[in-house]
């Protein structure tokens, strides 16, 4: 992550493109929190990369003054990894929805978690497929009635936090778009984390699954005395579903993927010159 002495305000990250989200969409809150966090960290837009998948959340790169890549449905994590490998100095933020990240792109989560690349992954979780008009998603509750589940969803919802902790992610947190100040702080901690920083953000869909009245009464903070390095305790908190717990569940340090790649190259170099160089050397 690179910072400069230049002052940046949340305004510095706004683009000319006005968000296309429905008025009242939770994603506005996420976007504002992101601006605030970036300004607080003084991330220079030239060193900032926002990668997204497809869905309402996928449009985020268009609204952040940075280098943005609106990629393929479900493939935020591989694209972000490629960016980070090409230029480890960049601050990379991946954004996606619950369908993008946990359904079509779910296969990339365990592998990104165990590789531990140094980037941030924000899920804007609204428990529905907003852009295709409200079908049930991996985090929709049992019995969720919508176009493709006229008699209610018969699938158990997925627990993102427990999943990420189980897969070995090194930073796992949860925020709510309706609490933008706390969310900005959480995003800041995730960006500052050296390694894979995952934040699940409850971001209601005002049009197809309005949870603005459902979420607030269930909100609880992660207990102040919670030891974030205690994985078993973090898992316990994640499995507690009576409340919507906000804050950092788990954080630990492990070498990053980029560090590993650099180490491998060093080892290979110690073993001898690159094969091509050896072949070309036959000329001299």
């Amino acid at each position, binding site marked *: 992550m690179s910072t400069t002495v230049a002052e940046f305000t949340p305004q510095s990250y706004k683009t000319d493109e006005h968000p296309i989200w429905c008025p009242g969409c939770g994603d506005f809150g996420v976007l504002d929190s992101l601006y605030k966090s970036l300004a607080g960290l003084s991330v220079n837009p030239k060193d900032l*990369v926002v990668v997204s998948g497809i869905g309402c959340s996928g449009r985020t790169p268009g609204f952040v003054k940075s280098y*943005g890549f609106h990629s393929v449905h479900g493939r935020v994590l591989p694209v972000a990894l490629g960016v980070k490998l090409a230029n480890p100095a960049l601050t990379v933020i991946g954004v996606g929805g619950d369908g993008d990240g946990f359904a079509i792109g779910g296969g990339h989560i365990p592998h990104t978690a165990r590789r531990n690349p140094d980037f941030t992954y924000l899920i804007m979780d609204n428990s529905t497929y907003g852009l295709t008009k409200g079908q049930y998603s991996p985090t929709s509750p049992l019995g969720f009635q919508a176009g493709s589940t006229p008699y209610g969803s018969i699938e158990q919802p997925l627990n993102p936090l427990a999943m990420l902790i189980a897969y070995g992610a090194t930073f796992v947190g949860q925020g709510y778009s309706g609490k933008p100040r706390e969310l900005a702080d959480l995003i800041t901690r995730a960006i500052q984390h050296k390694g894979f920083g995952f934040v699940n953000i409850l971001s209601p869909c005002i049009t197809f699954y309005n949870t603005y009245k459902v979420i607030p009464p269930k909100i609880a903070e992660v207990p102040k005395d919670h030891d974030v390095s205690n994985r078993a305790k973090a898992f316990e908190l994640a499995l507690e579903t009576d409340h919507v717990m906000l804050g950092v569940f788990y954080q630990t340090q492990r070498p990053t993927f980029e560090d590993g790649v650099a180490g491998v190259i060093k080892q290979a170099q110690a073993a001898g010159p690159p094969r091509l160089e050896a072949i070309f050397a036959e000329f001299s």
Partner: protein
Amino acid sequence: MNGNGADGEVEPLRALVVRLAGDSGDGMQMMGELFSESCALAGHALCTFVDFPAEIRAPQGTLPGVSAYQLQFGAGRTLTPGDRPDVLLVMNPAALRVHLCELASGGTLMADADTFNESSLRKAGYAQNPLVDPDLRLRFRVADLQITTGTLLALADSALGATEKKRCRNFYALGVLLATVDLPREPVLRRIEAKWRNDEAVALANSTALCAGGEAGVKLPRRNVARSAPRPGHYRKINGNEAAALGFQAAARIYGKSIVLGGYPITPASSILELLARNGSPAVKTVQAEDEMAAAGIALGASWAGSLGISVTSGPGLCLMAEFLGLAVMAELPLVVVDVQRAGPSTGLPTKTEQSDLLMALFGRHGESPLPVLAARSPADCFAVVFEACGLALRLSTPVLVLSDGYLASSSEIWRIPDPDELLAQRGDAPVVPDGDYQPYRRDLQSLARHLAPPGEPGHEHRIGGLEKNEQGWVSYDPGNHELMVKLRARKIRNIAQRLPPLAIEGDKEADLIIVGWGSTYGAIAAAVEKLCAEGRPVALAHLRQLAPLPADLPALLERFPTVLVPELNLGQLALLLQDRLLRKVVPLSKVRGQPFTVVEICERVRELSRGRRTA
């Protein structure tokens, strides 16, 4: 080609075809590689072919478990591994059963008689020992060898156990073979020493077996095979996947780009990933991704961030990459994917060769998504084609597909190592971002390549992605803009055809029949054309390297020929394309048996066609 290979032979054989066959645990591939390496070091031109089962260890001694290695070596142009072996060496009855039918009549059969016992014979489906069949000895020259006994006898003093001793059989057999074609043992001894430097006992046992085999071999008739006159330049033996890996490294060096390879293991492409993972260049980073979608995504993300993203795969993997290839077309980013084709659909025959991904490479994406497709014609050509593909991807900011196949991947030939200066001369550069406001989809007016600005530069911040954009890089649903952009992307690729060198025609340009081929069939077709022309049957050949866009001069050139024959290892995919382009019928020649064409198959079809023309 058969020699009467007795000692003191005056005229050396121009070429000899040798096939080694045994159980997949017998070390046939290693033996073949070492034998061909010895041939190369001795100055023979060569072309090899490996044929191994998909199972790592099929049940021992059974027909599906037979693994084979064939090579043709000699002097001058050696275009194919040879149709039929002149010498067949078999390590067990199953190998004899599978391969005897292809031994040239009068050819030499070497067999390990020790293995022709009751149980092995039964597994191979023989009621009686075929080696004692007098008819076999009438049709072929049979050299009775006792490879197992000879190995165990030579290793009588070795401390190794009986099973380990038996494992040295392949070196005994290699010793026999080297002696019969007058090749020195030293290069193999050096290899043994290097390979087992941490296991002296095994190294010694293999060397001893090799020498014992050599002593047995000198008692057999010797063949004198011609060697190529020394040519200027540096040469080495190379297979298609090695050549592709080196092509990528050369591109990284010549273009001063770092390469990020996202790959997922798949036969027969994996060795490119492995070779690049092992290479010690800081310019090449490799990731074994969780699937081919991730592999392509990693590569494309890296390309956007300033590296050259690449991937290597085979048909099933290319299917999974289709969506990312579409994004690469839309975002106009460099990306090179090598498809080492294998017999499909689905898992098909995963270790066997085929050319059946052509239409998928050309059209297998949704929307109007043109991209350049290149095909390598020989193992060494994989270097040149991959290098060219990287240059094209970087210059035009486009994904490029390279088609290789299972045959090219593991076959070897002699490669002249290019001078780095030659490669530098082929370098072309991507357009430089002009001063002023950066516009992601502003283009170079000549090449139509868009201006790339990787993250990290102040003032060039921009957004790209799968949604249609206008020149300034903003999402645009304007119908006119979409039509313009679709046509610009198509024109950028179509224009490549204008800059291609004129199509080269081999054989007889005045012939009535022209063969149009592509990819790995070049060797068999070119050898057939040489043969047919030599026997007074004129044939021309145009072999395509660029399949999308097709060369601009192709239609006019083919118009002159009344008959166009298109041999392919598929059911007529290039034929379909040519018929559309030429608006006339071409004659397809299809083969989908998991094996390359033989020279005879091509010659026969040409002879049939010319007979047909005469009687018509």
